[in-house]
């Protein structure tokens, strides 16, 4: 197969970026997208150019490192997959394919297709953890967890932190990510202490990082490689409302979890 690639090149954060066009020929349909990129990089280097920088590691869809927007879709065509799980057979022969970094106001470009996703960490750091240290560890079977709660918690905990939801959202919102974290902890008995402070702290941080608001486009759910349901955003909104109404505290006030 043959393709025309339009790839975003940017030497560093402060440099100007632009699309470069590359022709690739003789691609096997069963080659993965990243294998195709590897081959292109090998060629660029041999020709005296610079390889296209991109994040990747496990190449089996679990580490969350790879982060390309392909033809306008984070992680490319197909549902429920990461960039490394995209195959060339999913494209039409002789297609022009546009490759960009995950785009969002809160994700500055570091180089080429690599972006800085640490804003997600700062949301997490604002309170996305179980907060209680005191006391002996309870015997877990003393507090049975219903299969429904356990399943909903796992379906949220499956988030790999790739940021596709942010890149897919027209507003650049991080609601699916944050909702997944809130739902994971909020469905478990261990997550109950500090539950309503947690949601307010995380939402405050989300707002201050420059993520947009949610207006129910639903693009995040469609782009999520782990197919996390948009229901987690409902959970987040509900907990946030209860928190603000029944457990109010001054933003960044005295309730920072320890």
């Amino acid at each position, binding site marked *: 197969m043959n393709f025309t690639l339009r790839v975003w090149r940017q030497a560093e954060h402060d440099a100007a970026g632009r699309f470069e066009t590359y022709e690739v020929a003789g691609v096997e349909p069963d080659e993965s997208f990243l294998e195709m990129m590897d081959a292109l990089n090998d060629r660029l280097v041999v020709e005296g150019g610079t390889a296209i920088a991109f994040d990747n590691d*496990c190449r089996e869809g*679990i580490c969350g490192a790879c982060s390309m927007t392909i033809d306008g879709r984070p992680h490319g065509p197909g549902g429920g997959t990461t960039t490394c799980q995209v195959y060339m057979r999913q494209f039409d022969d002789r297609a022009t394919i546009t490759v960009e970094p995950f785009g969002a106001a809160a994700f500055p470009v570091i180089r080429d297709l690599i972006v800085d996703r640490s804003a997600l960490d700062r949301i997490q750091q604002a309170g996305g953890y179980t907060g209680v240290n005191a006391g002996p*560890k309870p015997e877990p079977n003393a507090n049975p967890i219903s299969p429904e709660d356990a399943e909903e918690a796992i379906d949220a905990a499956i988030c790999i932190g790739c940021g596709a939801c942010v890149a897919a959202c027209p507003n650049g919102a991080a609601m699916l990510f944050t909702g997944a974290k809130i739902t994971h902890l909020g469905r478990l008995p261990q997550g109950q202490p500090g539950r309503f402070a947690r949601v307010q702290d995380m939402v405050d941080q989300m707002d201050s990082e420059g993520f947009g608001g949610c207006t129910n486009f639903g693009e995040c759910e469609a782009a999520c490689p782990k197919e996390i349901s948009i229901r987690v955003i409902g959970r987040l909104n509900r907990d946030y409302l209860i928190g603000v109404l029944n457990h109010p505290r001054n933003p960044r006030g005295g309730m920072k979890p320890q």
Partner: protein
Amino acid sequence: MPSHDVLVIGAGLAGQRAALAAASAGASVAVISKVHPIRSHSVAAAGGINAALNPEDSWESHAFDTVKGSDYLGDQDAIEIMCREAPDEILYLEHIGVTFHRSDTGHLGTRAFGGASQARTYYVADITGQAILHVLYEQLMKHHGQLDRYEEWFTTDLLRDDHGHCVGAICRNLRDGRLQVFDAKSVILASGGAGQAFKPTTNGLIVTGDGMAQAFRIGAKLMDMEMVQYHPTTLAENGFLITEGARGEGAWLLNADGERFMERYAPNKLDLASRDVVSRAEQTEINEGRGFPDGTVALDITKVPRKRTLEALREIVNIGRDFAGVDITREPIHIRPGMHYMMGGVKTDSYGETNVPGLYAAGEVACVSVHGGNRLGANSLLDTLIFGRRSGEHAAARAKEMAMPSTAAAKLTDAEAQIAAIIARPAGGRRIAAIKEELGTTMNRYCAVFRDAEGLAKAHEIVRGLKEEAATAAIDDRGSVFNQDVIAAIELGYMLDVSETIVVAAQERKESRGAQFRTDFPERNDDQWLKHIDIAMNGGDVPKVDYSPVTITRWQPQERTY
């Protein structure tokens, strides 16, 4: 200049657990990781974590299974510690928010795993590593007041003072290429294995033996390096892992004739014998012509109820679909043994201390040795957590007794000159990627399931040649922002050092035990070889070989059958 009581290098499960333990004990801690912590390779651990938590189970039973699985090369004092402390570790994880599988009654559920006499593997679907890693990372963040994270920083050298003590590290910020000295009272290496020295491997691209080589270069001993685990079920196309959980849930191995061949090799445990046993059986079937033309046998997951597969094995449903084009709930998938894990590593005691004062190691980079000749499935997550925690606690206590060291600026200048020299290498010759490729295929050809003197000698010759070639191999990218070329050149050096120790140890052990099967010495020989092989650096020459005894507490070696 950053200075900390404890510097942890690597932020997978072992590194994060060590950092949390040290911080909880009051130490100031820095964690250095060449990737974002949640991309660490622990994230790919699928199947689960072993602990004798059920009332009808016992830690002694878990320990015996581990000793037998190790082919009696594991140190039994360390194995006892690991298995005794396992239940508490599961409770700790549960407490901080890991969503372990719950049965219909809401209680913790277990699955069966290879080489175990009881179903004692606790799990989160088939994303156990990811689930634990993410929750530990949340806890790291909770301790951010005393725990500094340096993410996407690459360690180039460990630092020693004039007394030979390890006093920190030099690391490169990948974002801007700047080098920085990190002073520390103790350093805990938790940087994982060396799977990328083999091709194919189940390991991610970042798993390049960094810590093993760094420790080796400052005088730490490596142990059990010949013991390389080939996992029985990796995908023919690309070496991806199909979790042992699949067989734990009831999947069968079949040869091309449709025969359940494990009945001949392990009549009692069948598909759930130890990994070394199953991988050898598969390779024998393939070598003797009973495999498929693509050099594989089949894993039949259709034996597992479809609903159960979709619930408990969801990642491999996706992997089968995306990478092999197979719906594993409806048809068998072709698999073969593939390089998966290093039992060997930096030799430590049960507190993670190496023979270099101030240097600790935990997790796959280390060799305590709890896995000996062969690791049981779901014991590696346990190893990372137990010995990560013990290292962190010990290093924190040590920090209270000593003053902060400070490193001469000259060390930084030396490191900068080394990097500059790599960047300045003249063009010509083969590229780094080509040398790495030859290393990987060589190791996979000669240091795999079956080995012999002739093949190992050939491998050694090739590795020595590649070392010479790598020392001058040019790189293409001369920039400072996210220069992945410079890192690849340094990583190649690490992999070559580690590969030579693997080959030398495999040549030395003239018997078959655990993962080491010598076709020229096919029997286990307890009289001569019930001992560890230690490897130490010897300048630029072939590494030095030494021996150390295996610690036996209560289980004398027996014949090993499954």
